[in-house]
């Protein structure tokens, strides 16, 4: 059955949806209809993805689903869609989780005046991300990459009247552009050297290229990945991106867009493997981001910023997995992370809603008693992230950490374990501060202040659990279930679940299966040791956090210097501002205030003034005196006569 045209539907339907919704917004169609249109488009794209995956499974391991779309006439430069194991894996998560978030947004954004615009932009994002992961070459991937950046800009700055949101959107776009430059340069080098930009042409040839070319390409591509995936040192845009609506944070900055860098590294793994600096650089970036993200999350007090740094850290794990050659583990972690991180963000939306827009976790508390549904979903998400068995995160994180050990990198393994401990600490801190203890109203009442305020608040229903609307509940429930059972989809034979060995193959890149199989989690003692260590550090970290921030917590003391530094992102923002932003602004100011009016305008105006001056001089010839004109005429005649007389 030739279903190649299905591939077009995956990006095409959301694109069509975006266009229709945008048109409908102009024409003031019914808002609920437009939201339903957006959700349906993504749902159908998901169905198409499933069908493509099934077709791929039937054709594997030799075939893949391919649909060439457009050629620019230059050899090797063209656009097409490819459905193989990696791309369909990503596409399933993108469209699946994307659909769930569309459903959630239909309820969450219902009060927003620009409701239809949100769905148009969200659909556009799904289109762009699908193009990115389904492309059959670097051209298509770059197109998707750039459009995803635009979508991110549009969605972070959705509430564009807010200056903070507009600034955050611009910052995200600029930092991403830095990486994109690297990506484009890498593509140019590849085109120059391999003569083509299709994966099928470039990747098999990677082993035969000279080392310096490979190193250059690998580092340039990595630059793009680092920017898009908010890894060290180009991570600064991600915490600010939390200015966008919470569903946007869930979809783009947790589940899908930030993983585009991981997709790039895994897709181009032959280049990274063949380049001597390739995989080590990836692993270094990964472990650096794991630790930095975890440490910075310790000092954050905004619930979304904690989750943002947590995303940076977890994507670091994915990069680490790719950097040690455990590609299937990295992709596995990508999927499970999408589930529980989206769950956490959507849950954070419920929390923020309940506290009336407050996002500072120091001012929260006691949600566990009044909102059991939020309590349990957030708890499961947290535990999945921390990596408690049998939840999803345990298997995927384990696979990566064991992979590091079995690839012969004990230092990376140890640091990854440390990172897991830190993860447990900051996540339990978050959970405890938000859900345990007394609600802020009760705490204020106990402190003796505002008895009347507390009574009024109770009257107004603040803090009282409202029934969760089904559109919000269903995605949360589905994501919770996926966070619980997601681990079994790609579970290696440790669990004895039938088909587990098959699962390890689910995400493996085709040509690499034999090597990967050797690195998949086995019953060796190394694996057992790792599991034990990870569990130990998680329990210790979580326990410490619960003790410090749990129900019987002492009132907040002054923050230590380290925590303050962590809260400020270890001053990366300030550094970039001083080194890049201020000089650039000064230069722009100089150009705008000095060069533009004086030099350029001066030159243009000067030419005009010269013309005016000259013409002012020349116009005196037209004096109006007829006799003077006659004299000029006669003088000319005399000159001509003299000339002729002399010539003859």
């Amino acid at each position, binding site marked *: 059955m030739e279903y190649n045209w299905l591939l077009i539907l995956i990006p095409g339907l959301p694109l069509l949806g975006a266009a229709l919704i945008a048109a409908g917004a102009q024409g003031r169609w019914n808002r609920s209809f437009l939201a339903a249109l957006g959700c349906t488009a993504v749902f159908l794209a998901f169905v198409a993805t499933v069908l493509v995956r099934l077709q791929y499974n039937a054709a594997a391991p030799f075939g893949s689903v391919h649909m060439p779309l457009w050629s620019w006439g230059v050899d090797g430069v063209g656009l097409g869609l490819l459905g193989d194991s990696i791309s369909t894996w990503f596409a399933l998560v993108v469209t699946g989780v994307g659909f769930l978030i569309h459903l959630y947004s239909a309820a969450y954004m219902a009060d927003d005046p620009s409701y239809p615009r949100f769905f148009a932009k969200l659909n556009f994002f799904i289109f762009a991300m699908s193009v990115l992961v389904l492309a059959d070459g670097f051209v298509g991937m770059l197109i998707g990459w750039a459009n995803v950046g635009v979508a991110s800009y549009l969605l972070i700055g959705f509430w564009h009247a807010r200056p903070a949101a507009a600034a955050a959107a611009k910052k995200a776009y600029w930092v991403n552009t830095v990486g994109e430059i690297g990506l484009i340069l890498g593509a140019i080098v590849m085109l120059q050297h391999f003569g083509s930009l299709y994966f099928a042409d470039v990747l098999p040839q990677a082993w035969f290229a000279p080392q310096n070319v490979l190193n250059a390409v690998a580092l340039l591509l990595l630059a793009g990945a680092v920017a898009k995936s908010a890894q060290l040192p180009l991570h600064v845009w991600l915490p600010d991106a939390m200015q966008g609506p919470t569903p946007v944070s869930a979809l783009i900055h947790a589940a899908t867009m930030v993983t585009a860098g991981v997709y790039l590294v895994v897709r181009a793994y032959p280049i990274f493997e063949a380049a001597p600096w390739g995989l080590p650089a990836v692993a270094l970036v990964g472990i650096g981001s794991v630790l930095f993200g975890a440490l910075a999350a310790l000092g954050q007090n905004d619930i979304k910023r904690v989750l943002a740094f947590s995303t940076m850290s977890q994507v670091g794990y994915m990069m680490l997995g790719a950097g040690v050659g455990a590609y299937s583990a990295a992709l596995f972690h990508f999927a499970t992370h999408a589930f529980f991180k989206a769950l956490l963000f959507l849950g954070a939306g419920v929390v923020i809603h309940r506290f009336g827009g407050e996002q500072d976790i120091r001012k929260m508390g006691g949600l566990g008693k009044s909102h059991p549904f939020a309590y349990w979903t957030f708890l499961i998400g947290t535990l999945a992230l921390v990596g408690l068995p049998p939840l999803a995160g345990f298997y995927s994180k384990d696979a990566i950490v064991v992979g590091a050990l079995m690839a012969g990198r004990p230092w990376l393994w140890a640091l990854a374990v440390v990172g897991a401990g830190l993860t447990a600490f900051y996540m339990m801190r978050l959970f405890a501060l938000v859900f345990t203890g007394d609600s802020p109203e009760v705490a204020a009442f106990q402190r003796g202040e505002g008895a009347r305020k507390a009574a009024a608040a109770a009257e107004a229903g603040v803090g009282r659990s409202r029934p969760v609307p089904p559109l919000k509940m269903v995605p949360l429930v589905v994501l919770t279930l996926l966070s619980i059972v997601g681990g079994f989809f790609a579970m290696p034979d440790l669990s004895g679940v039938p088909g587990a060995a098959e699962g390890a193959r689910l995400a493996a890149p085709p040509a690499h299966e034999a090597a990967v199989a050797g690195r998949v989690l086995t019953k060796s003692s190394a694996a057992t040791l790792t599991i034990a260590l990870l569990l130990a550090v998680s329990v210790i970290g979580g326990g410490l956090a619960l003790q410090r921030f749990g129900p019987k917590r002492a009132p907040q003391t002054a923050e230590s210097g380290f925590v303050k530094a962590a809260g400020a992102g270890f001053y990366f923002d300030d550094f970039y501002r001083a080194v890049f932003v201020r000089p650039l602004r000064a230069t722009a100011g100089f150009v705008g205030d000095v060069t533009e009016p004086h030099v350029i305008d001066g030159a243009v105006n000067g030419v005009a003034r010269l013309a005016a001056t000259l013409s002012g001089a020349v*116009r*005196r*010839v*037209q*004096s*109006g*005196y*007829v*006799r003077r004109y*006659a*004299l000029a005429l*006669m003088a000319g005649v005399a000159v001509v006569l003299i000339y002729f007389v002399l010539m003859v």
Partner: protein
Amino acid sequence: MPGFAIEGYVIVSVVLFALGIAGVLVRRSPLVMLMAIELMWGAAALLFLAFARQFALMDGHVFSFLILVVGAAEAAIGLGLIVLLFRAREAVDVDEVRELRG
């Protein structure tokens, strides 16, 4: 005709032409300037006829007729303009009619 001396005719023509130029440049009444221009036409016609006589060609005679006709037309128009000018202002001094300038 025996002893036709063309030099005389040329000299007379040149002198008349110069007088005409002088008249245009020096006089300030438009009417007199017009007359000086007509004088220049006449000088040119004289030259044409002299050379026509010299080389026994009819071209010079034809051209002098042309000059007469064109001179008549020009005089008509010029005089019409001068009449209009006289109607607009009393004393006409060509130096005072200088609105058309830069």
